[in-house]
């Protein structure tokens, strides 16, 4: 217990140190706030403009959550398909890899052309950005499942679906959560990207307006908000993960009391 608290303190201290270092470096090297503002400036802007920013935050958060939710669903389904069927793997993987190598900024205009500006392209971009890491980790987890574990169920006459639900997916959980953490951050990136291209609302739009007016502290305030939202989502998943896949991380709790 005591150890856990000390650990937290340490890491909190290091994170604070990071921002202090940034502040000091900016002051020491006399970096213009038009290039990189100091964290204190960013925070000041953030506080001062918060009431104005609030609806944009809500907008981005909602859009991201919907896109992310859909992305997870799509990712799990495709990942399960690819991880269990060889033909699906050989077909879908190259297509997905190809799609993933494409900058999503190039795709947003197409979404806009189809669905108009607004939240729909943002949701779709968030989805497009975030489902791929989930696919890859689910597929890899399934493909590397120890055959011995599957044999346990096969000997009971289990079908493919039973195997997937009772062995494949649980075993893959740690890597599913790892990919969720990646995916959640990418979902934010996707939303913001789409908002940058086509929307009148959302953090992306704020950042775009701010940057076209060279209000760099406001741009960074947007970045801070995004970072914060990303971390918040990460913490949420970590808590869920702790409950669901505690079995995989037993090391820390293993040493006798």
């Amino acid at each position: 217990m005591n150890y856990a608290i000390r650990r937290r303190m340490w890491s909190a201290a290091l994170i604070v140190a990071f921002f202090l270092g940034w502040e000091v470096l900016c002051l020491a090297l006399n970096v213009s706030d038009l290039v990189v503002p100091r964290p204190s400036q960013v925070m000041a802007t953030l506080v001062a403009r918060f009431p104005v920013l609030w609806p944009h935050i809500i907008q981005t958060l909602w859009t991201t959550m919907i896109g992310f939710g859909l992305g997870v669903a799509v990712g799990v389904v495709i990942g399960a398909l690819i991880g269990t069927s060889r033909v699906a793997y050989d077909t879908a993987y190259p297509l997905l890899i190809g799609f993933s190598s494409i900058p999503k900024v190039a795709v947003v205009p197409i979404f806009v052309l189809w669905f108009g500006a607004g939240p729909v392209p943002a949701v779709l971009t968030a989805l497009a950005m975030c489902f791929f890491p989930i696919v890859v980790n689910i597929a890899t987890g399934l493909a590397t499942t120890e055959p011995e574990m599957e044999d346990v169920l096969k000997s009971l006459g289990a079908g493919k679906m039973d195997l997937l639900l009772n062995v494949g997916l649980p075993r893959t959980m740690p890597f599913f959560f790892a990919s969720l953490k990646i995916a959640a951050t990418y979902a934010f990136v996707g939303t913001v990207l789409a908002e940058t291209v086509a929307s009148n609302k959302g953090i992306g739009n704020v950042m775009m307006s701010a940057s076209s007016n060279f209000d760099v502290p406001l741009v960074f305030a947007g970045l801070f908000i995004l970072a914060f939202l990303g971390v918040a989502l990460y913490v949420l998943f970590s808590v869920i993960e702790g409950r669901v896949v505690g079995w995989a991380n037993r090391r820390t709790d293993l040493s006798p009391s």
Partner: protein
Amino acid sequence: MNPDLAQIAPERKRPAVQLSRASVAFGQGAERVQALQPTDLHLDEGEFLALVGPSGCGKSTILKLVGGLTRPSGGEIIVGGREVAARALRVGMAFQNPTLLPWLTIEQNVMLPLKIVRPFRQDYARKKRGEYRDRVHALLADVGLEKFAGHYPWQLSGGMLQRANLCRALIHEPSLLLLDEPFGALDQFTREELWGTMQDLWIKRRPTVILVTHDLKEAGFLGTRICVMSARPGRIIDDSPVTFPRPRTVEMTFQPDFVALNQRLRERIIDARGESARKVAS
């Protein structure tokens, strides 16, 4: 030998397991390892076959063949009239190294067959907290693990894992039991107790059983029949019925009849090890 044991020994003669020149080889070309030579094996319903033989001779391979987990490279396997055992019969299998799923507690691991196997699975959602749970706990208590139902596999000792593994093979009262050294990591006394448990179960429900073991006493105590395999690539080189009356007791294993059987099997195994034995001798 006791004449009245005939009425206890299996009478029904429906074939439960039928291997016809089944063979297994792994790998290709130079890498090819012949794990099992073409083998014939016929098991009637309700038989209790004890399978003994040197390490690496293909005992586990036979179990996996019968269980439908390995496809034969040649020959044919029919179990309960079908090619894949689990489709035809209710199969219970205890693997040589207890592969309990690490994300499930012991209770959940043991309950797994009830979640998968028909007809139990239909009622699983409804009964898993009631009837099925009680059933699992009762079985765990039989093997001395009642206190560990809520523990995870990594919290158990080697022998405890093996006992949980055995429970998982028995929980759904299978009509075909495939047991791969289920008592290997246990001390003599626990082992003898579980022999008793096993025998009671067999007398009561008469499943067809294949038991792989290195312990001839165990083979004689539990089996209705003992098969001896040769060294790798394996082949069945001896097939003897065991006709001691049931229920058998540990004391019986010290009787001259029993000791003589053991002695005979011992010699067969010494033959069986053949070439490989000469190599192992350092």
